[in-house]
């Protein structure tokens, strides 16, 4: 999670802009998981998420020469990811409409937590699976707001900035998402 390590992202990106490949490696290490999971949660297809993930980072690499610090780097990065997702959804919707094929976009089931973390108990894994399932049922915008908060460490304002909506809209989406997730997790109280 990048929340604790966001300081210096902008400097790293500026260093990369000026030719420091090592700076990119550090940036990538900080944000690769978050961006990937954001894409995965939104498109719910691992293969597609990988393709979009690569596009997002390639777009960042291509834009390095014109990079200037105008916002937090994570906001900038997730805005690129959001725009790439929107492009994909628009194309997919157009394709679905033209083919009248509802199954054009395969939807994977929410990915359950792997067993690679022995400290996580069976009950905790069940809770996590429940949470991901609930997350998968949220409307796309509400899910996006929640995931951006969790993966990107974005504030309400930054979520609004990254997704191109007003602060009130982003706040409302986040509140609805949290309320539904809380409600769905009531059985674990």
């Amino acid at each position, binding site marked *: *999670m990048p929340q604790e390590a966001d300081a210096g992202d902008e400097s790293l990106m500026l260093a*990369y*802009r*000026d*030719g*420091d*490949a090592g700076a*990119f*490696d550090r940036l*990538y290490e900080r944000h*690769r*998981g978050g961006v*990937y*999971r954001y894409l*995965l*949660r939104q498109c719910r297809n691992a293969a597609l998420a*990988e393709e979009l*993930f*690569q596009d997002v*980072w*390639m777009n960042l*690499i*291509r834009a*390095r*020469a*014109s990079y*200037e610090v105008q916002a937090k780097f994570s906001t900038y990065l997730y805005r690129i990811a959001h725009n790439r997702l929107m492009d994909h959804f628009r194309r997919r919707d157009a394709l679905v409409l033209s083919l009248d094929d509802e199954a054009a976009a395969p939807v994977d089931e929410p*990915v*359950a*937590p*792997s067993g*690679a*973390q022995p400290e*996580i*108990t069976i*009950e*905790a894994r069940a*809770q*996590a*699976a429940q*949470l*991901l399932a609930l*997350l998968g049922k949220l409307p796309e915008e509400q899910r996006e707001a929640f995931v951006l*908060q*969790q*993966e990107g460490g974005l504030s*309400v304002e930054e979520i609004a900035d990254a997704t191109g909506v007003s602060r009130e809209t982003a*706040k409302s989406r*986040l*509140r609805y998402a*949290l309320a539904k*997730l*809380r409600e769905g*997790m009531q059985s*674990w*109280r």
Partner: protein
Amino acid sequence: MALNYGNDMEHDESLAKRYREAANESPPARLDAAIRAAARRDAGAGPRPLSRIRAWRVPVSLAAVLVLSATLVLMMREEGADRLETAVEPAPPRAVAPERPAEPQARTAEAQAPASPSPAPQSRAQLPATDIAPPAPQAAPQIEQKVLAGNAVPPESPPEPRREVAAMSEMARPMMSAAPAAADAAAGRMSRSAPAAAAVAPAAPHLWQDLIDQPADKWIQRILEWQRAGRSADAEALVREFVRRFPQQPLPPEIRQP
């Protein structure tokens, strides 16, 4: 395990913790390698020239703005001074009106240097009597009115030169309207021509408004009246104007010369 849900409407630490435990997917290593390689390739080209341009963009822009502004100001000053000199200099020997465009400059010069001694006699010596201008702004319309009214006021001096004066003042009017702006713009450059202009310009034309068409003895009479009445400053101004208008006429000894 019981979850402790926070009350914050926009953040829930328990949900966040649970999400962090659940969300541990990461991109495949081959993607990592491909992206890092692409980044290195792109950075391998070194800093792009655009970065250097960006670094110098602001200073160069500021310098360009400064140079252009300074050049513009200098050009405007030069042009303003040229216009001013053009307005002042072309005074044909017999023309009266061309002195009038210089009048606003003279006023400005007077305002700038009120304590400078008036070199009127010197100026008077340089100009023939027939070429001396009547008090310009107030006198010219009066003369025009008289001419248009068919000489309602009996002229004591030949009317022909006055008609000429009126015509010239008509011609000079557009120049007069343009001259003050130029004079104000180039006030700093005017000081060299100011004494001459001040010498020609009347100090207080309203004082001798009613004497314009009167002979010299009327002027002397008025000067004496004012001296007796204690209006020394007005009397002195009138004496100056008298000397300017009647350079051949000797002043009576009882009149105090300024």
